[in-house]
């Protein structure tokens, strides 16, 4: 097991290093992307702060609490983007025939398809997010350590759920050689996680908790930290991930079994 983990760690380091070299080669392009990500982060935060100049609460949450939801969304989303960036090129990998090489290499093709590219721009962007989250934490009232533990565990659970979605997207690319928009739909739907799920109508709230569990990924950790998430929902969050990951792997295996290599 240790040997296997060491092997994948080395593969990840090598591919990450290659990704970093590529990004450093395109300095102007990388700077533009980095600046764009910063603009999105700071403008959204500024708008939210500006909104609270006119109201005291939104759906019962204060500025600090709403900021906590927003920063938690960013932490979970960016961590997933750093780790699973390779999925964004899944369709191209299949269409150009590179997936055939993944299949013959002594490495899990799923690992290559989901984790073999690291976005270093997101690593740079996550630093101010961590600082801003720290500032939000400093403005929260004193909370029990259990709340912080639940927050950390539910964030990890959220990243794991996002992994399951990325595996589904990669499997769709292998299965259909199409659906290039699937990952972008996920990105757009994730937009709904920027706000606490309580702002939505009950039907949408249920859809975001049960159907497309954006709320489980982004809202649940912050609610647990604030002590507003029941134990039943915490159990549901972990149970959902425990089902979603094996299900996504099964779908991946079935998709690879149908792969004909006809695109290459």
């Amino acid at each position, binding site marked *: 097991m240790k040997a296997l983990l060491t092997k994948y760690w080395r593969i990840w380091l090598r591919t990450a290093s290659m990704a970093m070299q590529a990004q450093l080669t395109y300095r102007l392009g990388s700077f533009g992307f980095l600046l764009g990500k910063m603009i999105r982060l700071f403008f959204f935060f500024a708008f939210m702060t500006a909104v609270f100049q006119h109201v005291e609460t939104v759906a019962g949450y204060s500025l600090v609490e709403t900021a906590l939801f927003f920063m938690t969304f960013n932490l979970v989303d960016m961590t997933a983007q750093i780790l699973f960036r390779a999925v964004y090129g899944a369709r191209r990998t299949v269409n150009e025939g590179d997936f055939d090489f993944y299949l013959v290499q002594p490495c899990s093709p799923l690992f290559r398809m989901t984790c073999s590219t690291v976005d270093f721009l997101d690593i740079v962007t996550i630093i101010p997010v961590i600082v801003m989250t720290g500032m939000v934490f400093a403005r929260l009232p004193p909370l029990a350590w259990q709340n912080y533990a639940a927050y950390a565990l539910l964030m990890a659970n959220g990243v794991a759920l996002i992994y399951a979605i990325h595996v589904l997207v990669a499997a769709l690319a292998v299965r259909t050689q199409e659906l290039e928009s699937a990952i972008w739909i996920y990105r757009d739907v994730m937009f709904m996680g920027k706000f606490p799920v309580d*702002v939505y109508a009950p039907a949408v709230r249920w859809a975001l908790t049960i159907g497309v569990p954006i709320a489980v990924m982004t809202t649940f950790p912050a609610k647990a930290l604030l002590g507003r998430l029941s134990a039943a929902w915490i159990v549901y969050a972990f149970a959902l991930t425990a089902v979603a990951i094996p299900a996504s792997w099964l779908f991946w295996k079935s998709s690879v079994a149908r792969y004909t290599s006809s695109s290459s």
Partner: protein
Amino acid sequence: MKTYWVAYQIALQETLQRRSTLIMDRLGGFAVVVSLYAFWTALIGDKATFLGYTRPEMLTYVLALNILRSFVFTGRGWQLVGEISSGKISSYLIRPLSYHGYALALDMAQKTVHVIASFFEVGFLAWLVQGELFLPRDPATWLIFGAAVLLSSLIFFFLEFAISTFAFWTSESGGPLFCFELFLQFAAGAFFPLDVLPLGLRRVLEATPFPYMVYFPVRIFLEKVSTAEAVRMLGMEALWLAVVFTAAMTIWARGVRSYAAEGG
């Protein structure tokens, strides 16, 4: 003119042929509109108005956003960057047509499909929330709004074109384009009405062409400005279009002169 009409028709067929991509694109955009609507509904709460917007005006603003995003924010910038970088642009440069006219025809085809789809979405959302919509009482408002939207679309097209044209000098113009598009969405009021911003910052943004793409046209539609003021805004938009068009054509002419077709 017939050439561009044929290009428009072919592009229309192509867009309609890729139905799964189109539906997924629209689904993603719809999710963004639903979340903005939910957020603004939470902000307005039990109040009669928020930032000077009544509930029907707020709902109309969000729904108009969906239509304007579909009509204004669809350009050919990324395609241009790709065509210059790959050298494919050479095949267009030797054809007896204007590349701008050709790109505009393709863009219009995309807009046609997306705007029609957005009307269905708007109707669906309006029906779903059973909310009262604001419709202009003065027929002149419809005319001025239509003209404003058309000019907005052209401003965006040529502005994006000007930035994408830098691909003639660097293969890294994707970064600045990404940055521009993200900044534009905020500065145009495509996420939040600019009224939420502090007056000083709003004044700065109003001195740029960005608010003319979403914020001002929606204010015209909501009859938040007098007819005389709306006509003045239209004049300013025409002026911005002239500036942006001249800049785009100048950069293009210089870019073509420096083009060495190294990609092709």
